[in-house]
């Protein structure tokens, strides 16, 4: 991971660590903090705890987002500290969920804009002049457009990939695929490295082709406290604990010292969490069953 981040993430880059609740690469976010990256623009529909930690650690100059919060718990306090009041210092570029999805999609498709039926009669196009009206060439329909978003780096956590980076995901898909295709460089972080044969057995399950992947990093529990469908549950306890930690800048700094700067990497973080806590997150089994692609020769 250290090598992948050092090689692909540079100061000033636009970075997208995507994942809607599911498969958020906390491991990559922590490594970015450890490497003291600066002036990053962080893009993500739901900045979530990982961006709160990164903002708290001072790596970010700007957020591009659609929903800013600790889902089910409350606000992102490190972000609030630098966005509220006269001293607001973090730049915000704000859309709706579908606007962000449209931005990644336009980026992936090399389109100059993506049209959507949103934003009518709201203050969002006022707050963000990049949200612009566009008229249909078929009659009078006016819709809104968002511009393409092409991150320098997309970091995608997944259940498994092969060495070439052919990556398979099941469960919530968010907009990881769109973000990856939109990005200049893609880092894939997986629970499990598998042989090419495992991937080739079920090609419809492949979400990201190795073609666009720059690095594959193996990091079991690399999404914790987010989750990986079938591997472990979301650690909701930490989402609640973070509320108190993040309300106090000193506590947050202590937390970073202990859990990010204080560990060499994810293996140490896992050890520190301990087997008991991690084992408690493992779900029972619910197999997909197998389908037959047929052998045609």
């Amino acid at each position, binding site marked *: 991971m250290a090598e992948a981040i050092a090689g692909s993430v540079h100061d000033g880059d636009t970075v997208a660590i995507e994942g809607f609740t599911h498969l958020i690469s906390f491991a990559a976010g922590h490594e970015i903090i450890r490497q003291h990256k600066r002036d990053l623009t962080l893009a993500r529909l739901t900045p979530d705890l990982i961006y709160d930690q990164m903002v708290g650690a001072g790596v970010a100059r700007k957020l591009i987002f659609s929903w800013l919060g600790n889902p089910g718990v409350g606000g992102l306090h490190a972000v609030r500290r630098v966005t509220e009041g006269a001293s607001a210092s973090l730049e915000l570029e704000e859309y709706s969920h579908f606007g962000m999805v449209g931005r990644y999609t336009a980026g992936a498709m090399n389109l100059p804009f993506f049209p959507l039926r949103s934003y009518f009669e709201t*203050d969002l196009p006022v707050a963000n002049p990049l949200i612009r009206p566009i008229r249909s060439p078929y009659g009078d329909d006016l819709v809104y457009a968002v511009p393409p978003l092409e991150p320098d780096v997309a970091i995608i956590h997944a259940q498994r990939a092969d060495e070439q980076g052919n990556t398979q995901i099941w469960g919530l898909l968010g907009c990881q695929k769109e973000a990856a295709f939109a990005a200049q460089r893609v880092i894939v972080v997986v629970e499990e490295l598998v042989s090419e044969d495992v991937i080739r057995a079920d090609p419809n399950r492949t979400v990201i082709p190795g073609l666009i992947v720059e690095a594959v990093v193996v990091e079991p529990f690399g999404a914790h406290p987010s989750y990986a469908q079938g591997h472990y549950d979301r650690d909701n306890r930490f989402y609640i604990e973070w509320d108190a930690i993040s309300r106090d800048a000193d506590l947050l700094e202590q937390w970073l010292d202990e859990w990010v700067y204080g560990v060499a990497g994810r293996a140490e973080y896992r050890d520190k969490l301990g087997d008991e806590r991690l084992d408690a997150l493992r779900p029972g089994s619910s197999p997909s069953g197998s389908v037959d692609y047929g052998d045609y020769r």
Partner: protein
Amino acid sequence: MSPPEPVEAADFSASEMMIVAAARELAGRHVCFVGVGLPNIAVNLAKLTVATDLELVYEAGVFGARPARLPLSIGDPTIVTRATAVTSMFELFGFYLQGGLIDVGFLGAAQIDRFGNINSTVIGDYAHPTTRLPGSGGACEIAINAREVFVIMRQSRRSFVQRIDFRTSPGNLGGADGARIRREQGWLGAGPSVVITDLGVYHFDAGGVMRLDSLHPGVTLEDVQGKMAWQPAVADRLIETAPPTAEELRLVRDVLDTEGIYTR
């Protein structure tokens, strides 16, 4: 089926009353866009009572969820396992919501005005807010594309305001012109149809203005007036919300939220 037992007002919480009132409003609806928390419980209660055919679409990309436990986040893995379909957000927002398949969307709000316009972005000035709220998420497009919108929120002078600080999700706009503008601009949604608070239930009149139709048991009109920044329109026949039945409470407490996470 035996007739529902009467239940005393003291026997349920304000959150439980909100959930039950919201569930009842879902009678006759077919497809519902679900967020986590109170709406999730309300929708599941409706499915067990007044709207057994209700189809649930979760914002996270899940259709036909069959959660084995109460989902604790909007993307809880329990809504994925044994669902009928899991989709990308492109498809969820594009094909399901913007495509016109959603009958009812639920929204919360930090501020609402009498026309049902909603702010969930900032309190104060946008560039230097006193409080930075989460922002739209999907709310903006839900307000525009869901056929109708249910709002669930607690009521206070700070939340029921004369003028919202930022319009995140359009409601009936300036009131009487709302329906016309929605039609002319080709929106799929007719806008907010009901607001359920901890004090009562509101619908909207022909002019697009919120009207108090029902007070929850034990709540007075004065209580309500004390917790909003305008003088509400009141129904000619203001009624008392029927309290939760024993069966409704049993379902909420013993089936949907056994740990009382959202309902105490």
